[in-house]
């Protein structure tokens, strides 16, 4: 709630009530960043959930080579975020990147994904999906493996089809863990910074400027501490709401596993 610009120390810290907030809510840049974050969260987390869960269902059986394939899939998740950004910036490079080469092979003309404002956001969503699908996969698989056997046997005896078993037996039992994965991932999207920073720095223009990058730009580029802090507070409120829901699910889950 202060007007505080580090580049102009003679102005000092002035108390300006809610001006930082009102200027925030009326600025189109804020709403654009907010909208992009929401789109990013919806698409990326949606894809991660579907792919991760599908992959877990696929892996939930015995087959040869499982113990080799399984850890290989988990590698993106434990790769340092900054290196993830590095890898994909290299892959997306228009002159010698692997992805650009593949795109050219299949006849796409717009193959410099990261420097085109239209494709930059989908590209970083893609990277996020690559990075975090293994996380959803791991959580789902752990839960799938721990499910009791008897409901499945009962369903089989009753003559349920594979789809019916999935819909009425597997899915309801998986709901809580999927919800946990969903909430954790959504919170992470709001935190996301490293990968985007190294790949596009929010550009080209402001095509990939999510809220966390906007905070960074306001505070550490324009040295506008008050506005950056106001943005951070708004973001915090969103995160707190999500984490309250998370904790409620968590408590429920705890009582289920204990009881």
């Amino acid at each position: 709630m202060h007007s505080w610009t580090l580049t102009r120390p003679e102005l000092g810290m002035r108390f300006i009530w809610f001006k930082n907030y009102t200027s925030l809510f009326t600025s189109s840049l804020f709403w654009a960043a907010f909208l992009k974050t929401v789109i990013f969260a919806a698409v990326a987390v949606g894809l991660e959930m579907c792919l991760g869960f599908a992959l877990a269902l696929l892996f939930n059986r015995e087959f040869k080579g499982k113990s080799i394939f399984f850890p290989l899939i988990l590698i993106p998740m434990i790769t340092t975020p900054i290196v993830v950004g590095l890898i994909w910036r290299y892959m997306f490079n228009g002159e010698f990147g692997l992805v650009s080469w593949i795109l050219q092979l299949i006849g796409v003309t717009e193959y410099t994904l990261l420097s085109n404002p239209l494709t930059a956001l989908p590209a970083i969503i893609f990277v996020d999906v690559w990075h975090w699908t293994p996380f959803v996969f791991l959580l789902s698989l752990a839960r799938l493996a721990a499910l009791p056997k008897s409901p499945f046997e009962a369903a089989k005896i009753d003559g349920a089809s594979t789809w019916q078993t999935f819909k009425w037996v597997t899915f309801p039992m998986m709901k809580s863990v999927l919800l946990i994965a969903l909430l954790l991932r959504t919170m992470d999207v709001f935190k996301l910074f490293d990968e985007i920073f190294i790949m596009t720095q929010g550009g080209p223009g402001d095509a990939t400027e999510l809220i966390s990058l906007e905070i960074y730009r306001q505070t550490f580029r324009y040295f506008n501490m008050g506005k950056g802090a106001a943005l951070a507070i708004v973001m915090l409120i969103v995160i707190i709401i999500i984490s309250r829901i998370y904790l409620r699910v968590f408590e429920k889950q705890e009582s289920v596993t204990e009881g």
Partner: protein
Amino acid sequence: MESERSTLYWVVFYSVIVVTVIFFFFPVVYLFMTSLKSRLDIYVMPPKFFFVPTVQAWIDAFTKKPLFHYFFNSIIVSFGSTVVSLVFGTLAAYALARFKIKGSKDISFFILSMRMFPPIAAAIPIFLWMSKFNLLDTRFGLICAYTVFNLAFVVWMMREFIMAIPEELEEAAMVDGLTRMQAFRKILLPLLKPSLVAVAIFCIIFSWSEFLFAFLLTQTEAKTMPVVICEFITWREVTWEQVSAAGSALIFPVLAFSFFVQKYLVRGLSFGAVKE
């Protein structure tokens, strides 16, 4: 049941598996491959998959910039903050798990929410404090910043591990004349050892990979590896073979460490919300 499935089923099944594995695994391999390429082999289209490997890029990367110094910084900071968080975190977790404290559940959840806190939002106050206390660009400052986040994780995880150990063990020891601290040290700690190791590795991996704070709070002396990697990338020129070498050097320890915590991976990543 599985043997009744047709050959076609298995062909499709394995192709899907192999394609996904390649999708997730190959980019990391490709990074390593790039670090072994010569400059001529990198700047070509189509990308080369077969080339004469050379370690020139590794030598260049480690000699042109004082990478060993930054590597050392990374090690000091990760281990420093891990040790501090483990000592205080385990004690706090013990208190939360064993004593009847009013609102201890709320305290636990409050601590957990620290971990969910977006670092960029915490960056502003931390940056201002650090500059006030002259801790900018020191390894100690960075250790403090990481401890905030690691501590939350340690408390949360250790509380759960301690609660899983029956309280009667310590009570019996205390009846036999040990003080509470002795009971904690001699009875509980040995039992917690494997969990402590797992939690410690998670903290190390986290601090090792952290970028934002390292980037904002350091300038020259205390820089850690992720920050240096970011510096390899300038708008003018990127020395891809060198930055790949530095990147590979950064993720190797993480991959190796993760191998040891496989068993705890799910628990650690979901804050114990999902148990194996």
